[in-house]
């Protein structure tokens, strides 16, 4: 006689049944080195690192991929992503990546930059690399603040947003409005794919991964520059818990930095002039 199995199993037994190699549906990619991430709890950098490495793993291009890390919180990115990496001077990652790609046109070259690196000190390198249509991918993490140096105002800081150097909120009359560099580079002839994504919810993470994949595919086909912005949080700099910061980002960042593709296959799919 068969007994009713469910009565026999304690919870431990059934968990043991599930936790087996054959039932594995998701494991963190092995292309992350396993080093403990130096980021604050809840920081989006870790998720974006992992998504890039997942795409590299799926495309089977680990040996051909070269990253360029920025100055900022992600300065140690080479410790975490298990691909070849070089470190660029502050803001110069697109220029360094240009050199690498021109010498090794068959390698996959990407830069990984924050808003202080890409949109402030590296504005010239970013715009000119995009304008020349270098065959590289730029991954741009925008949290509206200088995270590593203590939460000072960045070019991307929102109007009225409090930072350590704008304790009463950003005053646009004095400091100018925030810079939408993604909309700006989308108008240049050299960019082929421009998109803005976020990584705070499971659904947006899945979309962000597709955008990263698309960016690498564009580079594979040598179509031009692929530029993907990630609107991310800086819960330490914003003085919030990670989940509060994610909610604040939805309420305040997304209206100004709307998510979605901006330029696909070399054609603008959004009215960026209006958005600027």
């Amino acid at each position, binding site marked *: 006689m068969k007994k009713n*199995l*469910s009565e026999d*199993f304690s*919870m431990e*037994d*059934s*968990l043991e*049944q*599930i*936790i*087996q190699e054959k*039932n*594995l*549906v*998701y*494991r*963190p*990619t092995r292309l*992350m080195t396993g080093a*403990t*991430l130096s*980021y*604050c*709890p*809840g*920081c*989006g*950098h*870790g*998720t974006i690192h*992992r998504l890039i490495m997942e795409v590299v793993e799926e495309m089977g291009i680990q040996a051909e991929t070269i990253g360029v890390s920025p100055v900022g919180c992600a300065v140690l990115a080479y410790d975490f992503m298990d691909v070849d990496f070089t470190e660029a001077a502050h803001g110069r990652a697109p220029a360094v990546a240009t050199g690498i790609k021109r010498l090794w046109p068959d390698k996959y070259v990407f830069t990984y930059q924050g808003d202080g690196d890409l949109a402030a000190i590296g504005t010239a390198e970013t715009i000119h690399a995009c304008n020349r249509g270098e065959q590289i991918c730029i991954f741009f993490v925008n949290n509206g603040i200088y995270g590593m140096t203590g939460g000072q105002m960045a070019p991307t800081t929102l109007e009225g947003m409090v930072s350590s150097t704008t304790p009463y909120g950003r005053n646009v009359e004095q400091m100018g409005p925030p810079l939408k560099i993604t909309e700006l580079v989308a108008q240049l002839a050299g960019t082929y794919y421009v998109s803005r994504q976020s*990584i*705070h*919810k*499971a659904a947006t*993470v*899945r979309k962000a991964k597709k955008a990263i994949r698309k960016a690498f595919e564009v580079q594979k086909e040598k179509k031009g520059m692929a530029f993907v912005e990630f609107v991310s949080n800086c819960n330490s700099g914003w003085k919030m*818990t*990670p*989940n509060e910061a*994610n909610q604040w980002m939805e309420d305040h960042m997304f209206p100004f930095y709307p998510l979605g593709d901006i330029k696909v296959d070399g054609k603008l799919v959004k009215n960026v002039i209006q958005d600027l």
Partner: protein
Amino acid sequence: MAKVRGAIVVDIERCKGCEVCVVNCPTDVIAMSKDVNSKGYHYAYMEHPDDCTGCTNCAIVCPDGAITVYRIKN
């Protein structure tokens, strides 16, 4: 059959207790432990393992890649 369909394994030492997985779990399986790991963070664990569907939402939003997901495929 056993009722449980999915399960997660949290790498306790990698978990930084950010709680992003907690709000992303559609079935409210995950909670933060009262205990702390060697760095002093309250780590995530399955409070209601019965309800886990193995949807992987928690794992893909985990900034530190601390979660592995298993699911019985019927």
